[in-house]
């Protein structure tokens, strides 16, 4: 199998676990409709994701990146091929996956703490230890003191942080993020990027991060996967060799600019950003 990132020097400042494969996607395809005239959303996706890796996926609207994420989350079956998480095929929702959606999707009748503990309630985990963990994670995202508040009392950025903590509470092996900061203003978005990077470094989760923004993809990703539309295919894979932790200043460097330009070019070649 062609693995373009192989051999590229992993950045020394990140304490990566040895490059164990956590996700293997094999010849994955998805067709909506069926009977031969259906719409092909994903065609023959083949890739692997290492344990602890941050993979950004960029692509224009309708390139099937959300479909890919839904299949990885077990919310939707693949038409062909499969995806393996830790060696077992993803055939339905799994308890070792956390998902962050584009909107925070908080339950207004639950407090911040209650929302964060939702996965613990669903999976019947011990409430005491989970509450302690919830408090630690809320502190990590700067939401200490907001445990008993309700979602409508929080700003958009704070709500999305609650959603992030909720996705981490049951300590999933894989964190799937579907344009989580797309609805935030530019400044909040950059702040959230910095925070997400910090949380990722501390928690060492494997993250699959879908975005429209090339610079966000480069800023956060160990690798950036470019998808091309109709049918959704993997275009290019870029390995981002920028030292961690990255600060917002890195965005003004030449090296960063080069990555962004190369990815833009790849996107344009494959159908273009809108």
């Amino acid at each position, binding site marked *: 199998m062609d693995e373009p990132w192989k051999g590229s020097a992993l950045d020394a400042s990140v304490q990566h676990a040895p490059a164990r494969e956590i996700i293997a996607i094999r010849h994955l395809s998805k067709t909506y409709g069926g009977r031969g005239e259906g719409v092909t959303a994903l065609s023959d996706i083949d890739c692997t994701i290492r344990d602890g890796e941050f993979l950004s996926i960029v692509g224009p609207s309708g390139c099937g990146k959300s479909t890919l994420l839904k299949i990885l989350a*077990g919310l939707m079956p693949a038409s062909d091929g499969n995806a393996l998480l830790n060696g077992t095929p993803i055939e339905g*929702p799994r308890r070792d*996956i956390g*998902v962050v959606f584009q909107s925070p*999707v908080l*339950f207004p*009748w639950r407090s911040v703490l209650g929302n964060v503990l*939702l*996965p613990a309630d*669903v999976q019947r985990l011990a409430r005491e230890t989970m509450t302690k963990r919830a408090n630690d994670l809320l502190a990590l995202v700067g939401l200490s003191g907001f445990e008993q508040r309700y979602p409508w009392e929080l700003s958009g950025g704070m709500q999305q942080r609650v959603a992030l903590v909720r996705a981490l509470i049951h300590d999933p092996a894989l964190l799937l993020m579907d344009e989580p900061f797309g609805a935030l203003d530019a400044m909040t978005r950059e702040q959230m990027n910095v925070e997400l990077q910090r949380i990722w470094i501390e928690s060492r989760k494997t993250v699959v991060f879908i975005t429209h923004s090339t610079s966000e993809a480069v800023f956060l990703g160990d690798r950036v996967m470019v998808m091309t539309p109709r049918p959704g295919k993997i275009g290019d894979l870029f390995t981002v060799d920028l030292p961690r932790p990255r600060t917002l200043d890195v965005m003004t460097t030449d090296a960063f600019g080069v990555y962004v330009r190369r990815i833009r070019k790849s996107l344009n070649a494959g159908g273009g950003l809108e």
Partner: protein
Amino acid sequence: MSSPRNFALRLLLIALVLLLWEGAVRVFEVPLFILPAPSSVFVAFYRGFASGLYVDHIWVTVGETLLGFVLGTALAFVLGTVIALSRPLEYFLYPFVVMFQAMPKVALAPLIIVWFGLGLASKVVNAGLVAFFPLMVNTIVGLRSAEEDKVNLMRSLAASRTQIFWMLQLPNAMPYIFAGLEIAMIFALIGAIVAEFVGAQSGLGMLIQSMNFTMDVAGQFSVLLLLSFIGLVLNWIVTSVRGRVLFWDASTKFSDEAAKKEVA
């Protein structure tokens, strides 16, 4: 708007209307059996209470209303839930639901008196029947109204259908359910009164009927006054429970819209 001054003006306006009414009835010498003056209504009101006549009838009507409300809405909640959760059941039960919904339920009152007699049972059944539909429809709509993202979130956590129901669909349906309960409460009162009109031995509806026969129009006015007061109290009970349960539902407009849809 609600400054002490405006409140005083409000009271003044009410006093003025009553005064005009009183004056007009006296000046034009309107007969008592057509339109009684407010003073006669208050006299009738006082007499009704002083003789103890009203108190017994109030309890009868309120009892019928509450029993009908509880039974009707409990059944509506269960059936609405079953229909909302089961597509096949919805498919087969829907024609019945539509037919009964289009029917003016109060028109069934004479039949119900025939089936259940002149006593308490027929009033409770009629009140329950009238209260049933607004809650059932709102329960179905409410349980189905959970956003796709929220359902996906629950599914992504590997939640069971039961968990999705208790943790998402039911709390999410609460604004609709309470909007339905508010209407159901008032409908139950209407149902009880109508059944009393058709045939009863006691209750405020029966009282209005018998006052009508004796041309006691002032008495009828006083009972009407009493009924709107009872309606207010019953409605207040539901809204105050709702205020506690739905503290998170910032937009009360939302549930008011659901309520309006159901007023038929």
